[in-house]
């Protein structure tokens, strides 16, 4: 037992496991809306855009969270606005805005020439290096997102499922789009140093997909997704301590294993169902 609890004796590990668990839960929560809108790639794109913002903030000597957050929010709103034009589509909008944003960051690096700051942590995550302040920041963002989803659950669901009828029924779909953009940007900005921009993208997609494989109900999918994100954050960091793996990939691989499990379970379930129940509308 002492061996199992040994890592909790270190402050850096306690911070790491707390922040990874919170980040996993957050990704699971927001990721449901992202995946169901067919915008799975937005996490990947936006995290690169925010990386551009982080670099720019550093170069312009602006607070990293503030600069990267504003940069990411502008990118996210532009993506959602452009994605509303059906002739372009969400995937192309993400591609244009986020790569341009990332490119601006690279241009700033090349113009300024050299950096004393290492951006590896932003790119690949450094969960073992997080401070108590970082944990508090992620905690505040987690609280804000949880309250926002709680208070706007019905409007977010209606907008995600059927934006045109939601609009007609009195839901401000434009406001819901902006709320989603704010939540996504806040999430990626505070989790950058923890999971790294490349791993956030995976954690926004895998938990919701696991949820979707296991249920046909929206609220159950939401709970499963949050559960998978939370579990992956906790177990991933815990295992990384003993296996001496990088923490970010360990978290993502834990989630990926759960995906494999869910895929097998759902395949078995489908085989047991009569064909008529699978596609009754055809």
């Amino acid at each position, binding site marked *: 037992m002492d061996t199992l609890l040994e890592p909790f004796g270190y402050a850096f590990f306690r911070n790491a496991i707390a922040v990874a668990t919170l980040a996993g839960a957050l990704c699971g929560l927001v990721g449901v809306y992202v995946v169901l809108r067919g915008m799975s790639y937005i996490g990947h794109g936006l995290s690169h855009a925010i990386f551009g913002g982080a670099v720019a903030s550093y170069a312009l000597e602006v607070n990293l969270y503030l600069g990267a957050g504003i940069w990411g929010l502008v990118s996210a709103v532009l993506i959602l606005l452009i994605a509303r034009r059906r002739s372009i589509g969400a995937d192309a909008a993400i591609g244009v805005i986020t790569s341009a944003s990332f490119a601006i960051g690279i241009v700033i690096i090349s113009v300024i020439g050299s950096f004393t700051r290492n951006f590896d942590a932003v790119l690949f995550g450094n969960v073992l290096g997080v401070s108590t302040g970082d944990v508090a920041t992620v905690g505040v963002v987690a609280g804000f997102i949880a309250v926002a989803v709680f*208070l706007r*659950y019905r409007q977010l669901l209606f907008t995600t499922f059927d934006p045109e*009828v939601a609009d*007609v*029924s*009195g839901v401000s779909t434009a406001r819901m789009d902006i709320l989603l953009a704010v939540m996504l940007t806040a999430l990626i900005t505070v989790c950058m140093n923890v999971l790294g921009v490349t791993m956030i993208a995976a954690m926004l997609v895998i938990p919701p997909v696991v949820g*979707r494989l296991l249920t*046909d109900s*929206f609220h159950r999918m939401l709970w499963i997704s949050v559960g998978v994100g939370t579990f992956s954050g906790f177990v991933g960091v815990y295992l990384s301590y003993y296996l001496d793996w990088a923490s970010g990939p360990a978290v993502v691989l834990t989630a990926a294993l759960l995906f494999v499990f869910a895929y097998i379970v759902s395949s078995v379930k489908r085989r047991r169902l009569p064909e008529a129940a699978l596609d*009754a509308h055809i």
Partner: protein
Amino acid sequence: MNELVRFERVTCRYGREPVLVNIDLSVTEGDFLGIVGPSGSGKTTMLRAIAGAVRPIAGRIVRDRGATVGYVPQVETVNWYFPVTVREAVLMSRIDGRVVPWASDRDVRDADEVLERLGMGDLGERHIRELSGGQQQRVFVARAMLRRPQLLLMDEPTSGVDVRTRHDVMHLIHELHHDGLAVVITTHDLNGIAAHLPKLVCLNKEVIAVGRPQDVITPDVLERTYGAPLEVLSHGGMPVVVEHYPEVVEADERRVVPLREGHHGHPA
């Protein structure tokens, strides 16, 4: 009869393209109105304008402030793989006055009552994909009905469904109308649907004609609406639109070579 919506010289556009031009129209309590016209004629825009989701760039739309509108989308636009059960889909329209995410006992009771009334009382926990065509349409009628509307708007309610489902859906709409609901539907189906409605609006960006089917389903009005000549016959007092494709028939006749002329190949 109380007027629910009135259009006064309304013009709407998407981008630079006008989709509705100088529309004058009135929908009153107890109306059952069908909007017909070719694709791109502005039928869905008119429905959305009635619902208040499209703002005119000219003219004005006057609404009875106390009237609630229920909107039923085309089933072909629905994402059937979205993870919602029938009850969850119906409860989506209960967005007013409750902050917490979960539905109240009253909300659930109301949703189940509407589903029961539409003959789907035992299907609340089913996924929306696991329903027949008519049941899928009813889910969205139920969602609209949960708002307790005075005016029900339905976009192509029988599009993409078989004859039996079309009959079921139209039977349901007639029932709702008889219960006092004003109904406006758009349709492409002149013979199967439009000819059986009390009142039609023939639309092609502007209103070509308004009136009873026997008054507006005429060769002249249809040619102005669809931009193509259409023959209209009368069957038991009902207009029946006959579609001719003379150029196709002529081309077919040219391709089919009579065997008695001495050719031995198979006709194409």
